[in-house]
Each structure stands twice: as C-alpha cells, then as structure tokens.
C-alpha cells in the first residue's frame, strides 16, 4: 500500500516554478532517500508532503488522506523535521518534549511515559534538565528528532537530519533510523551524505530541476547484472579504447586519464576471460576494480553525473 502518493504536483514561489508535474508513490514501511542537487526542490517537495505549503496544483495523499482536503489529519500521522529547525532555547530538554506532547494532544497520563521513552530513544536522557540553548549541534538534532516523533507518527520526514553532526552523532542517528525502520515506520530522508543513506534506505528518489529524475528500489538496482568496472590501462589511448569497446558485454562510459569507467553485464567468469583477452591483445592493464551497487552509483546513473569518488552526492 502506498503511504505517500503524489500526482502532478506543481509548486510556485513568487515569480518562479520550483516543482514541475511531480508524480511518485512511496510504499508503506519503506525508507526513501530524497537526493538531488541544492535548489532542486527537495525541501519544497517535503513541505508539500508534510502539508505545510499549498501547491499550485496537483494532489498529495498520505495514507490515503488528501493533504489539501484534511491537512490536520495528515499532520497527526506525520512527523517532520525541517532542515533549519529551531528549539525553544529557554526551555529544558524535558520541557521541550513535554510541551510538544501537549501540543499533539497526547492524553495527560501518556505524556510522562512518552517523554521518558523519547529521552531514552534519542540518547538525551542525561541532558534532560539542560536548557536547549546549552546543547551541542548533535544533541540539538537528537532533540529535534524527538520533537518530530513525540506523537509516534506513521510517516517521518527528515530534511537533512545529519547536517552539522559529528561522526558519533551520525552513527547514533543511523542506528535510530534503523530502529524506526524495524518498527515499520515509513521515512523520507533528504540528505547529501549518500554513503550514510545507503545504510538504511530502501528506495531512492532523485529530484533534479524540480522534477523526478529517477525513483528506484535499491534492492532492484543492486540485483541488476550491470556492474561498474574501473579499468586502469597504462597510457590509455584511442587504440586501447577501441580494444576495450570491442569486448563483449562491456560499455565504456567515461575516460579519465589512464582509467576507463565501464558498465559490464557479464558474469565474474566472463570478466576473468575478458581480462585475459585484453592482456593477450597487448593492452597494458594495470588495474581492474569493480564497485558495488552503491547509492552513489545509483545517483550517478540517475543524474548522469560524474563520480568524484568522494562520497558526496552533489
């Protein structure tokens, strides 16, 4: 069943259109990485899904509820953490969570236990009496996530949740997201840190220039026979490239110095035979590495961007 259904969504800021006829569905229980370059329209799309903006046209439904028809119902089933969220600096961590639990109309007897549970889950129990203003970036982020989860929403939308976090905090966030995934929550996470998204995402939605460039299930991507091979050839030239392209099941995608990035659809045995053939033909191959089917590969394939092998998506 689709948790999120977006059909023909168009959104304008004064003077410019930022979302163009966006349509996709997100399955219940999935964790979707929303990726794309800065200014692609990711945050606007997330805000439309969360029912915080009025789109120009189109339809967004969450769990079968039309956001435009009943946004408050959608808010009750959605937890949203904005990329630039703020905290009530003068309140303690516990007061922040208690206040948000009250705002979500939790029954009075459930407020205390829920706050306790969130303090433990987000790892900020030992900071509960500290003022929000005194928290470090990582702890602020944990509290922000706690505030978004206070009403135990079925859908969780996190916009750049790991930005500015130190490695320890990122690992904690990763573990927390895996825990939520195990509980069957549907999540949409916008981030630039692709190798971290890879740890817990099931789907990837690539947004470019306000349009859906690609929407794929990562398991299907990983299962596909094509692999990316990076072949190093000493003094790689036209003659070598011709010999490479003559190999069956091999397609040269790009060349960079002595390296050729290729897509290969053969088996490992085929690959071994191809290497032997290249060496027999006098091609001075000095390295051959196969990359896995990473989220970064998927992103690069979707956007046609060149990998910088640095881990950043954009």
């Amino acid at each position, binding site marked *: 069943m689709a948790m999120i259904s977006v059909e023909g969504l168009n959104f*304008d800021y004064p003077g410019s259109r930022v979302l163009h*006829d*966006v349509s996709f569905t997100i399955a219940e229980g999935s964790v979707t990485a929303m990726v794309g370059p800065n200014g692609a329209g990711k945050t606007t799309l997330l805000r439309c899904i969360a029912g915080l903006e009025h789109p120009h046209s189109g339809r967004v439904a969450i769990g079968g509820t039309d956001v435009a028809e009943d946004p408050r119902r959608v*808010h009750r089933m959605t937890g949203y953490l904005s990329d630039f*969220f703020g905290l009530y600096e003068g*309140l303690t961590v516990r*007061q922040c969570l208690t206040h948000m639990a*009250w705002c*979500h109309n939790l029954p*009075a007897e459930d407020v205390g236990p829920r706050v306790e549970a969130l303090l433990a889950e987000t790892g900020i129990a030992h900071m509960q009496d500290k003022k929000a203003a005194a928290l470090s970036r990582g702890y602020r982020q944990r509290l922000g996530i706690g505030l978004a989860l206070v009403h135990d929403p079925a859908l969780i939308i996190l916009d750049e949740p790991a930005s500015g976090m130190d490695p320890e905090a990122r690992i904690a966030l990763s573990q927390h997201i895996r825990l939520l995934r195990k509980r069957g929550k549907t999540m949409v996470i916008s981030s630039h840190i692709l190798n971290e998204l890879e740890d817990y995402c099931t789907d990837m939605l690539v947004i470019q220039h306000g349009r859906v460039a690609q929407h794929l299930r990562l398991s299907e991507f990983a299962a596909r026979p094509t692999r990316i091979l990076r072949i190093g050839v000493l003094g790689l030239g036209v003659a070598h490239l011709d010999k490479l392209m003559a190999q069956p099941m091999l397609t040269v995608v790009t060349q960079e110095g002595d390296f050729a990035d290729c897509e290969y659809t053969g088996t490992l045995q085929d690959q071994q035979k191809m290497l032997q053939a290249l060496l027999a033909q006098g091609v001075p191959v000095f390295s051959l590495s196969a990359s896995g089917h990473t989220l970064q590969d998927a992103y690069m394939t979707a956007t046609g961007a060149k990998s910088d092998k640095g881990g950043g998506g954009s």
Partner: protein
Amino acid sequence: MSEKKMRYIFTPEFHRYIWLKFSPFRLLAGPVVPVLWLMLCGNFASGPAREILTVARSPGDFAPASGGLMAFFFIAVAIWGCYEAASALRDEVKGNTWDFLRMSSISPWPLVAGKLFGATSYTWYLGLVTLPFFLYAYVADHGAETLGEALQVAGYMVAAGVIGQATAFLASFIDMVMLAGRTGKNRVPRVIGPFILGLVVSSQLFFGLAVQVGRAMSARPAYFLHHHVTWYGQQTVQQAAMTAGMAFALFWLLFGAYRMARAELMYRVTPVVWMLFLASLLGFLCGFVQPRLFYYYMQLFGLFILSLGITYGVMILEASDGRKYARFSDALRAGDWRRVFENMHKWLAGLPFVLAMYVMTLTHVPEAGLHLSFEALGCFMLALLLFALRDGLVIHMALTGGDGKHVTFKLLFYYVLAYLLLPSVQMAASPGRAVDFMPWFFSLFSYVPGHVEPPPLLRTMTFYYPLPVGSFTAAVLPVLGEALLAAGLLFWRLGRKRAESGPEKS
C-alpha cells in the same frame, strides 16, 4: 510538582510562556514598584521611616498615588505588553519553531490564546498586582463610596490593555501572512509597526476612557458618562455604547487572530468570516446613524467610505500574493466552486458591501437642498470606487508574480506618479488657472440650497482624482477607461506569467 504528571495550564502555549517568563525572582520583583510607590505616597511606613518615606499627610494626597499606579499599569500592560504581543510571532518564526507548532495537533484557539496571553503574561502579572494598590489609593483619595467607580476605571484599564495587545498581535499575524504570500518564504513579521498600532489603540482607550473616568487624573465629569446616544432607535448612555464598541472590537480582534491561525494551521479558510465582519461592522455603525437629521445621507456616505477604505487596504495588502490568484483562476476554469471560494481574495468578497453602501447612500439623498446634485454625488462615489479599483489593479500588475522585493518602493513610486507628478504636469500646463480647491470641495457638503458649478480646471483633473464635478462623462468615464485599461494589462500580464510557468510534463 513533577512535570511528568502535570497537565498544562490553560493551553500548551500559555504554559510554555509561564515556564519562560516566570521565575521566583521575577515573581517577587513584580509587586516591588507599586508597594514602594504607595509607601512613598501613603502612610504605610511608621516611626522615623514615615517622616522620610511618606508624602501623604491627608487623604487627598493619595491622588499622586493612584495616578502613579495608573501610569505604572500603562507602562507595564500597554507599552511592554503591546511589544510582547507584537513580537510573539516574530520570535516563533525567527527561531524556526513555527513549523513544529503548525505540524502539531494544536487547535487555532489554544494557539492564539496561548500566544497572546502567554507572551504578555508577565506584563499582566505586573498590571494585575498593581490594581489592588490602585483601588486602595483611589478609594483613600476619594472616599469609600467611590469603590464602584474605581472598579470601573480598573475595568477600562484592563480593557485598554487587552485590546491594544490583541491589536498588536493581530497586526503582526497579518504581516506574517502577507509576507509569506509576497515572498513565499520569509514569514518573519515585523514588530515596530504592530507595536505602534497596538500602543496607539491602547493609549486612546486608556487616556480616552480610563483616565477620563478616573477622578485621579481629571476633576471634570467625563463627557460620555452623561451623554446619551441612539442606536437603532434605542437611547442609551454613551458609556454603554462605548463598552459595547470595545467588546465588539475585542471579539473581532480575537476572532481575526483565530482565523489567521486557522489558515496557518492549514485548515480550509473561506472569506465568509470576513464578509460577516464587514456586515457586522457596518451593521453596528449603521445603528448610530440618525435618520431624522438632514445629513443622514452623509453618515451613510461615511460608511461607504469606510467600507471602500477597508476593501482598498485589503486589496493592496493582497496584491502580491499571485499564487492565490493562480489557484483561484484554475479553480474557476475547472468549475470547482468550493475551491473558487476558498481562494477568493478578501477584497473581492468585500466589494458587495461597498456596492450595498453605495446604493444605500444614494437612496437616502434628500431630494432638494443640496449643493451637490444627486447625479454628481452618485458619479463622485462611483469615481471613488473606480479609482480604488484602478489603483488596486495597477498595483497588482506591478507586484503579482514578482519576486516580492522593493514592494514599498514600488507602491510609493506609483502613488507619487499617479497622484502628484502627472497631475502636477497637467496643472503646470494650465498657467494662471489655479484653483482654490479645498473651500469649494467642503462647501459642497454644507447646507446651502442650489447647486454649485465646479471650477473649470477641475473638469480636466478627473483623470487623476475622484472629483464631484457633475456628469457621468466628466467624473466617471476617464477613470472607467483607466480601470479597464489596468484590468486588461493585468490579465495580459497574468496570461504571460501563466504561459511562462505553466505545468510541464517531465
């Protein structure tokens, strides 16, 4: 009490402000000023301290005490309170906490009441702590029999504070929504404008009512305590009418904020309540119109101007929210009447009331005895309406679909060009024909039988100003042409924008 089991006080937002605004020190500091002031003015001190601290030697010496306490109340509730009310939303949006509230299940009324009364809670604490001391000083000054009057004064002081703060809060809410419509992103409302507006309203009520009633500040009997007014034929003391007026204003200020909160919380909002507001405002004010007076029609004319002024102001405020027009236009094309109504701008919803006041005024013009003919008055009012529409349409054309920048400059440029530069050029091209305009204009409304012909130059100025110069051709036709031209240009621009950013298939 442990917070784990604690329910919130009043609303979650109010409770949050209690956490933020109150501390043991602040609680203790609240009564210090009124107590010290009363000690200084009264005779609370004893022994040698009395000689040093007190200035009151007789009951009459309590006058400065009650006056000083009123001033302290005004500073705390009206000045500080209005500032707090005006900045409540700014702090929320600037601190990026607004989205958490919008995504929560909080309802509009708990949000509005919590923010308005929570943000100002400490100022009210200071004010309310002062009131018992004020009542004591007032009664000590004027005698025990004046306790009722003292309570009345205190009631007006509280009302002045609440209405001023509600005005500041609503103004900042309107500013926030207007900015969001204009820029699509920047919602941080300004503080100074709403604060000054709230302070002006609060001051007017405070000094106009509370201080007038209180003998502490004025020995004269308050005019409105003894004067009578008629409302729909019922005679009542003016004070009751003013109290009703304040209740009316407070109701609509709070209800207005409630409606703004509904819109921010993404509930469906239609202009029905706006129409109800206009209807009730005009209905309330029409009750004071005196049918027996010759100038009956002029009072109705005043209400026409009021309804037109409100609609005009709203039209300018809504000019830059082009996205709402786009949704309105799409819904209109699709024949989705519910969405049409939801996206209808308030100025459009207000037009029928302007037209109703137009008809009502004209049907009550006396048959004879006016300087201004029936035709001239009708054409003048129509010209006023068309000038308002022309301005609104031109400003829409300048702002709709823009980037939301330099709005004030664009508005000023238009007004200076349309109402100053262009007519000045025309005037300059007609040397030696200066018009003593103002005496002529006001003489039109005085009770002298016979019509007065307008000065010749004015007939040529109807392109620039709404003028009561007589015929439809002279007074209305020029501005009708301008309004139609502005409408045509606006539709052309909107069509172009639509073509540029129309839905595209990916």
